[in-house]
């Protein structure tokens, strides 16, 4: 096994291109588990923790650009106001020790359907910036997941950053686990209300081969809020609307039975957490008239 330690982004991309058998490692929270248990024996490890600038975040064209090396702990500590949904999700990931090392980009690269960042990224319409020696491209996060633990990343590409536009409305994240901390999700849900464009964003985790959105639920809710004038009035949300939204979110899922839960439970739980997340988000929206739209 080789250990590659580029210090610049250009070196990293060159190494990525030159060593197709290399596995990129940042926080190591997935890669090292594979190595420790003999399931992963890459020809080389491509360590990204020394790449200058990768641990930075900044704002670009109104969006927060999160470098691939930014840890969950920093998302929670530094971006809770700008990326609330992602910060809420980050707070549920693993342990404090994991959150000090693990990164959103790592969650994307592993692309486990159970990755906690995905529902929040989907709901917020995040963009993934990937790069290779051939150049840089950006794609909506929903196009990034192509199968169970498969992504749109080409063999010579690395994730450079994730861009998320700070929301114009409230966001929520809710995750089911069978323990009250440090648990892999049985089902997860991310919600973003976008009052500026009268839209709704959703993300579902652990309930389909890939993280996915619930388009029918989004359209339904956006339609209801618009037709009833609720975006403007900020009036109480009818219970039936929230319930229907929950059902539509659950209908978008295609879960399986596994050691963490049954498919039936996942569908049921999604309907509940989607409904609750909406009621909390709506309460936030009603209580926060400061954010004029």
């Amino acid at each position, binding site marked *: 096994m080789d250990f590659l330690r580029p210090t610049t982004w250009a070196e990293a991309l060159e190494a990525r291109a030159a060593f197709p058998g290399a596995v990129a490692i940042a926080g190591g929270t997935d890669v090292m588990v594979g190595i420790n248990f003999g399931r992963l024996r890459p020809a080389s490890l491509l360590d990204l923790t020394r790449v200058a600038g990768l641990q930075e975040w900044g704002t670009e064209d109104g969006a927060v650009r999160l470098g691939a090396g930014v840890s969950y702990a920093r998302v929670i500590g530094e971006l809770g106001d700008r990326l609330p949904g992602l910060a809420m999700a980050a707070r549920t990931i693993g342990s404090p020790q994991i959150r000090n090392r693990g990164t959103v980009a790592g969650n994307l690269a592993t692309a486990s359907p159970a990755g906690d960042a995905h529902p929040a990224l989907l709901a917020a319409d995040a963009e993934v910036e990937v790069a290779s020696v051939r150049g840089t491209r950006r794609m909506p996060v929903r196009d990034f997941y192509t199968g169970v633990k498969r992504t749109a990343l080409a063999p010579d590409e690395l994730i450079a950053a994730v861009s998320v536009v700070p929301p114009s409305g409230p966001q929520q994240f809710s995750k089911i686990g069978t323990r009250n*901390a440090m648990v892999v999700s049985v089902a997860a849900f991310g919600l973003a209300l976008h009052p500026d464009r009268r839209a709704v964003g959703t993300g579902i985790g652990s309930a389909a081969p890939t993280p996915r959105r619930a388009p029918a639920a989004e359209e339904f809710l956006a339609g209801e809020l618009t037709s009833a004038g609720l975006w403007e009035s900020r009036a109480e949300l009818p219970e039936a609307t929230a319930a229907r939204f929950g059902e539509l979110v659950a209908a978008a899922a295609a879960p399986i039975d596994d050691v963490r*839960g049954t498919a039936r439970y996942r569908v049921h*739980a999604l309907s509940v957490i989607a409904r609750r997340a909406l009621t909390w988000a709506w309460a936030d929206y009603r209580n926060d008239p400061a954010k004029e739209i």
Partner: protein
Amino acid sequence: MSAPTRVPAGAPEHLTGPGSGGVGDDAERPDGVLKVRGEFAYGSDLWMADMLWGATLRSPHPYARIRSVDTSAALATPGVRAVLTADDVPGEKVYGLELADQPVLALDVVRYQGEPVALVAADHPETARLAATRIRVDYEVWEPVTDARTALGHRTGNQVHDSAPEVTELSRENAHLHPQGNLVRHLKIRKGDPAPAADVVVVGEYEVGMQDQAFLGPESGLAVPAEDGGVELHVATQWLHVDQRQICSALGLPPGQVRLTLAGVGGAFGGREDLSMHVHACLLALRTGRPVKMSYNREESFFGHVHRHPATMRYEHGATRDGQLVYVKAEIYFDGGAYASSTPAVVGNGGTMGIGPYVVPSVHVDCYGAYTNNPPCGAMRGFGSVQTAFGYESQMDALAAELGMDPVELRCRNAMEQGSTTPTGQVVDSPAPVAELLRRLAAMPLPTRDDGGEVDLRDMPGGVSNTTHGEGVRRGVGYAVAYKNVGFSEGYDDYSTARVRLEVVGGEPTATVHTAAAEVGQGLVTVEQQIARTELGVERVVVHPKDTTVGSAGSTSASRQTYVTGGAVKAACEAVREQVLARAQRLVGRTVPDLRLAGGAVVSDSEDITVPLADLLGDDVLEETLEWRHRPTEAIDPETGQGFAHVQYAFSAHRAVVDVDTELGLVKVVEMACTQDVGKAINPQAVIGQIQGGTAQGLGLAVMEEILIKDGTVRNPSFTDYLIPTILDMPPMRIEVLEYADPHAPYGLRGVGEAPNISSGPAVLAAIRAATGLPLARVPVRPEHLTGT
């Protein structure tokens, strides 16, 4: 016995510690400073410059015949020093705690997934792992038997039986995993009216999943070949001498050539009572002539030790209209997995104490242990009683509901007390404050519900995962009481050996206590010091490393070490004290009746005598070694189950308060309260620690812990998917400790460790039932059970 030829880094040293304190004090652990400084050497910390690493190749199949094993590619791997199979086991090829039925390395058949097939020793763990993957084993895969009742010949799905089957016949009908059939043990209790009738009858069936001990320190040890052709094994274990017996048998060496020293133990809870890497490391060390370290990773650990038996149980309780129990019938099946381990004793406990600490005139129990192709099951804290407590306490709640009675009141009305007769016909001859434990619990204030103010997610079911802000949450309260035998039962010669030395070191009188009793974290080394301080009146007490140069202490299990090894240390100290006092009498020149040892001197209250031990002993060393036994128990009658089976019982009760998110099926335990009679708290702080820790393990089984098995294959051998409680899952606890002395036990003490692990889970289950109104027949309770999904 010869000294170790070479001493590895991390070999144990004498423990002294800065502490003080005698019996009844919160004495400080002598290993505490080492532990907080990261200097306490656990089995996995041992190290020698030229050591090799051992690795184990395990069967991927739960049931298969081995056609052939080809080790050539593994042997050809650079850095590999040895590859061994069953052919290389020089002595007996099978071992076991109670029945020798488990191969050291697979013979012709593998009977569970993870059964060791071959061993590798190499320069680096990665080389050893890699070489193990290069061993080619040709398996003829067979259909596994994975259900205990099926194994015993019942038709699958046949849940209700009118009478106990003739197991000796039934066990021969189905696949025979072992020549002796699939039945490991059938225990019968037949007491009172064989055809009882009652006003009210409650029938229930219950199931308990397979729990793992989940000790944090992985199975580890270092075997060092000795110059005399023998081997020194430093290992984390629970019972050095039973290990030694089995290792000697497998290696074909006499005990003098297999010398064991206890390495630091990172928790045990029963999971280290059976052998794991012990023989394997010795075989590799003897073959290579080099020290060999073996240390399992977490995945291998799940395959490397026995688990708690899963159980299915059917109970029928009959009572009078006013709540007096008339009879209990129980049919209990323990799945012992592929090898016997301690299944016979687990069946013994499950059967004899299977109806709980209640007085019942007529009892009819059939308790079975079966062989299957599931992972072997054996000892875990609570040993056979944890499972049945879920059954009998669920029944008591169901009966209370049927009668319209308060569940605590019903329990108190039927509670065992001193003088009661157990289902085995044994008269309880020491305090049994079952009703008092329950009444004290019920009198404790309930936690208040914080209705106002901001929701703190960390107090909610689901925690910061943000699943509820109070929606769907209902509170429930549940009670349970349990009892557990202390020490080994049914006629087992249960003893411990202690060697106590008294001398003057550097001007200070110093006692040295040497036993082979395994310190696994519970604090026995502290207790040994406390007893010596109290009995010998000295401050400085050295705990000798635990090894096989002194006689057996028996197992660190069955809540027995403070009782039995504590009893042995006390007795050895008394023998030393007699010598000292006799010397003092001679020195004084006359008989002083109230001479005693205190403050490092022989003193008398009636006369002004103070003879410092430093003066009395000079350079002399006083030493006594003796074996100490508790009162003998007796085997129970095989047809009726009657007999003096158990030497002592421990009693505890729990009240659980839970919040259940009834829509999502998520549980937050809000508070656990516990009352326990400990006879005498030798170290009150350690007693509380045992109650808290035992409570946590019971809570874990109730709501999250289960080894999931499909077709004999373990689906969650990791801490990612085998979940144990975190600090956010454990609630604050209220604890009341009672001290009603057992007149038969040293200092009146009762074993402490297991009882709280038995009563906590059923209390949590009862509280969840109270919150949800659901019957809940299985633990661990999953969200699916609470939401009907």
